[in-house]
């Protein structure tokens, strides 16, 4: 059976990035060191947010944190992969092969994502054996939560990249999203803790941010053992999916708009 050309193209990107990565031998060592540093740095101030963690996820703070670090490590490549792969010098040459947008986007992300999945495991092993993390995961729910999260983040990445292809620099939209994420997305503490830090009701802002749903759905699936048929989890999953259903096609369109706009202005080869 003939392999579809899009799959060949995605495979080509994955192999290229893997071959390129293995030439950076020290990266492997520094990556492992970074895992330790990441987990330790997230352990700070654990006692202050213990209560909301147990309320939201029926878990302890260190488990919440380590899972958060692991999720961050797993999902960041989806955001960064497209942007890094979009050096316009390369973009021109690759677009001349006549490949489609979807194969291009997925291909650029695939190796980094596979590598993240591999490093996700040591994160959890270190968490479990060094920091006594208690995982309570439901595998089908974890898979679905990760797929929804991937769609949300790919959508955001394509929006950001589409704008960057035109503006040729860090765009303020991405910058604003990142700033909001660091404060409101519940990366280092449960979002309801924001009501304690600032004033009651401020955590509502968090639920309007797609990144909050990424962390929340992944944590729910990994810490609370929810069944896919469990109505409260299913409702949360559907709420998060709304972001995916909106952001993925919008991101795809904005990415295509960016490429076409850049072609119109003759700036595709600029950086």
């Amino acid at each position, binding site marked *: 059976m003939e392999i579809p050309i899009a799959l060949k193209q995605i495979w080509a990107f994955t192999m290229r990035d893997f071959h*390129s990565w293995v030439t950076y031998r020290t990266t492997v060592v520094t990556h492992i060191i970074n895992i330790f540093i990441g987990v330790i740095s997230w352990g700070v101030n654990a006692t202050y947010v213990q209560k909301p963690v147990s309320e939201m996820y029926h878990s302890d703070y260190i488990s919440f944190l380590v899972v958060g670090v692991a999720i961050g490590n797993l999902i960041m490549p989806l955001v960064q992969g497209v942007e890094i792969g979009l050096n316009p010098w390369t973009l021109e040459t690759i677009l001349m*092969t006549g490949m489609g947008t979807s194969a291009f986007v997925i291909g650029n992300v695939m190796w980094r994502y596979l590598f993240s999945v591999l490093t996700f495991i040591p994160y959890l092993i270190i968490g479990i054996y060094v920091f006594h993390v208690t995982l309570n995961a439901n595998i089908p729910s974890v898979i679905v939560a990760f797929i929804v999260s991937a769609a949300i983040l790919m959508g955001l990445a394509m929006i950001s990249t589409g704008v960057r292809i035109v503006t040729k620099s860090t765009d303020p939209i991405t910058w604003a999203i990142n700033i909001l994420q660091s404060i409101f997305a519940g990366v280092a503490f449960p979002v309801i803790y924001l009501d304690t830090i600032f004033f009651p009701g401020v955590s509502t802002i968090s639920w309007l941010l797609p990144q909050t749903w990424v962390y929340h759905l992944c944590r729910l699936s990994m810490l609370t053992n929810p069944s896919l048929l469990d109505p409260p989890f299913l409702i949360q999953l559907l709420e998060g999916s709304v972001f995916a259903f909106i952001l993925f096609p919008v991101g795809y369109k904005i990415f295509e708009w960016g490429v076409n706009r850049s072609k119109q202005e003759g700036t595709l*080869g600029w950086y």
Partner: protein
Amino acid sequence: MTTMEYAIETINLVKRYPTRRPTMGRGGPFGGFGGGGGRGGHGGGMTSFGSIIDIIRKKKGPFVEALRGVNLQIKKGEIFGLLGPNGAGKTTLIKILCSLVLHDEGEAYVNGIDVKKNPRAVLRNLQAVLPESRGFTWRLTGRQNLYFYALLYGLGKKEAEERIDYLLEFTGLTERANDGYQRYSTGMQRKLLLCRALLPDSSILLFDEPTAGLDPPSAIEFRNMLSEVAKERDKTVFVSTHNLLEAQKMCNRIAIIDRGKITACDTPDNIRYKTFDERTVSITFHDVIFNEEHKKMLDELEKTYGVHSATPEMNSDGIFEGITIRLEKGADFSSILEVIMKSKLKIKWINTQEPTLEDAFIAITGRHPEIGRQMRRP
């Protein structure tokens, strides 16, 4: 309407670039006509919200016309040269044909396929070598880089390996195929670009300044390779260059583009001869003292039909060394020789000064091809 007879056809092609883009670095985005389609630049810091709103609203600013109604018809199997000074619109035209830049008006066809309407089909018929493209991964070997592109072009594993082996052999890169790309010289990098363009075996190849930056031996080698590709593999080759010698040696036909307009299109010889109304002939004599009889001969020469001027060449001792005659292209040279023979002068040699392509280029554009600066028109 276009016909399948032509590999490339453009009809009244117009491309305008906006002249203001605050996000661009290097002192502004456009250096002159056609500058936008080609060279890279780099952005500054963060873009303002205002500029993003401008982009979304497609704010109309002042434009510069990179192409102003370009009409070209390139036949299948031709080696066609596009000559023009820097910023004439060469790169813009090539990038439009590759669908990397979208034109504003007119039509462009590749093997009869509309470039704007069906870019993916166009790219199955055409590939380009752009000197500044950097699609290769520096940490990979030349072979690995080619394999990556072979998969993007949809080649199977065996087919890709065979094709890569063949192309590496053809370009003389086999021995260095497993070296990292970062260790390649400029000449080798250019050959790898050629390999990549030849991977899908498209019927049309575009080259933008193919020998720019190469030393003379590498440039000759690369030129020979292009000619071989065109002749032996029956491909249409479109070369943009400001190297006139390159165009004269390689191309069946050339077009001269200046300020976004095609100003001449013909064979190199026809362009050379059609541009000038007169030719210059130098006749050298065996040494003789200039006398009255010679003066009469010069007067008679100037009265001969087709002769514009006849200037004696004498040294400081009054020795009559020769004459420089400027005459019409179609003048009867035998009547000139008849006049000279009557004066019993012994001719040592006759030298016809042929117009070069460079002369023609300067005459047509008023600019030197490489300097690009405005020169006095002859």
